[in-house]
């Protein structure tokens, strides 16, 4: 244990996802030794992100305006929606340059253990977007793990009565993984080889 404020910083850092106690310590001491200008920049980035960034009212992606860059881009194809779990997955799919449609960010996956059910995801918002019939294909790109698969199956069944194609990214993605960590080539291929979800 360290003295007051240093330990406070370590504790705060340790609460971030993916940061264990050891990394928290390392980051804390890095910051202690860093140039105070660097730290100021980090602080203002943190404050600004909380002030300026919100969630796109259409797709749920992070946005600096009411709508995100992708939703407000007229060149995007309105007949496709790619459904992902988190905003970071939008970034991963964008990197492949394989997809020219728009996104829908669910905000997670169905996981009863964590108390996350369909009501806690942005599924109603998805149904609203699909209501006018402009979208002809929904590509479900939830993570290739059990919770992601369960969410994909749930969506496929939910959307079945609607007149549109529901597809899932082709396997080949590392199972048990995070979409975010799939490399561009693999993810790109998964897009090309997507299959219709049978329910």
């Amino acid at each position, binding site marked *: 244990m360290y003295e007051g404020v240093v330990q406070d910083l370590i504790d705060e850092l340790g609460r971030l996802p993916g940061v264990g106690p050891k990394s928290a310590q390392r980051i804390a001491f890095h910051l202690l030794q860093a140039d105070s200008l660097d730290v100021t920049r980090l602080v203002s980035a943190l404050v600004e992100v909380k002030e300026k960034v919100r969630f796109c009212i259409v797709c749920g992606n992070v946005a600096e305006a009411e709508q995100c860059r992708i939703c407000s881009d007229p060149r995007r194809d309105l007949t496709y929606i790619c459904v992902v779990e988190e905003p970071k997955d939008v970034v991963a799919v964008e990197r492949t340059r394989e997809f020219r449609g728009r996104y829908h960010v669910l905000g997670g996956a169905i996981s*009863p253990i964590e108390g996350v*059910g369909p009501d806690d995801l942005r599924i109603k918002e998805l149904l609203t977007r699909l209501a006018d019939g402009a979208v002809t294909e929904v590509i479900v790109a939830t993570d290739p793990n059990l919770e992601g698969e369960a969410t994909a199956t*749930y969506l496929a*069944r939910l959307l079945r009565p609607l007149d549109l194609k529901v597809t899932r990214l082709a396997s080949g993605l590392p199972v048990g993984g995070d979409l975010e960590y799939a490399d561009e080539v693999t993810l790109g291929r998964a897009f090309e080889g997507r299959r219709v979800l049978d329910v």
Partner: protein
Amino acid sequence: MHLRQLSVVDFRSYPSAELPLKPGVTTLIGLNGQGKTNLIEAAGYLATLGSHRVASDTPLVRAGTQQAVIRGVVVRDGHETLIELEINTGRANGRNRARLNRSPAARPRDVLGTLRTVLFAPEDLGLVKGDPSERRRFLDELLVTRQPRWAGVRSDYDKVLKQRNALLKSAAPVLRRGVRRPHRSSTPLSTEPMDKGVDKSVDPNDGTVNALHTLDVWNSQLAMVGAQLLYARLRLMRDLGPYLSEAYDEVSAATSDARISYKSSLREEMAAAIAAGAVPEMQALHDEILASLEAVRVNEIDRGISLVGPHRDDVVLSLGQLPAKGYASHGESWSFALGLRLAAYQLLRHDLGDDPILILDDVFAELDSGRRDRLAALVADCEQVLITAAFPGDVPSVLSDSGTTYRVTLGEVVRAD
């Protein structure tokens, strides 16, 4: 294959220990509580990533420390592989880690298959007399030893089960309202996808329909992963059966008709076919799991647990017409437990064209002299056998004379010959 070297740091009672090993028989002699089993437990852990004695890793790490290390050099076809495992219990060190020939493995699971062991210990009497969970564990561990990829399926199945049970518990009130609706009385024998009974006109605002849909989704997952696991177990049973009958007879010097059959939690007709030795196609098992889940749905929602699937199954051991559990004598029970392990050994040997390492922990003292000598004869041609015993006299001299003996005293391992 054989181990050429086994060493541990802060594992169980050992601050550190090194055990050079050779093919053939190695015997560890020492009074109770001196640390013999601790050493062979480490060897077993290198092969299975688990202890044969305890379910959690915590007791494996030496009291007062937070990290144990096990290292082993495996020799197979003249090739050496160094396996290193870190078992971490302290929060600061993070998860367990593994290295193969000094390069980090992405997951500890990736080392499975590098070393293969078959371990027989006094606890194995539980295979005959204990709960179904012990027999399921026997099957699943053998499955993974034979084909490591089943470790992934196994762990997926556990996860699906946890998710599904969490849902059954948390959504119980809503689900209960749902199952009382008239449309739920649709024929429970249907093998259609089970959302058949659920309203098609989905209203995402309806909590009950939502919960039922979510349950259906986890039924699909359970059926998909469960069918794979079940299929694998059934094929394993089919392959293991003949070895078991043979091993039992050899150990007991009798013709006894010892048999194993799989007791499934599926509906009666399928369960009967499986008990009779049928190995249905994976798709058939999948559909049957779905239908069986459908049939017990009301009951499951009442009790808040999953009542169908490989986690509810058992292996029935029988001698002639009688089940071993509750009927077999003490000696017969030992023969059965030993028979299962020896059968596993033979199966792996024939399957892989390579001997796993046979580990016999404190078992000679438990056997009568006939079984003892026959066991000695059976293991004499194994590539490597590790034996522990309290007294040199417990081990048949045909085994101890030919090999290396170590004395284990209070965590010190010293060569005795």
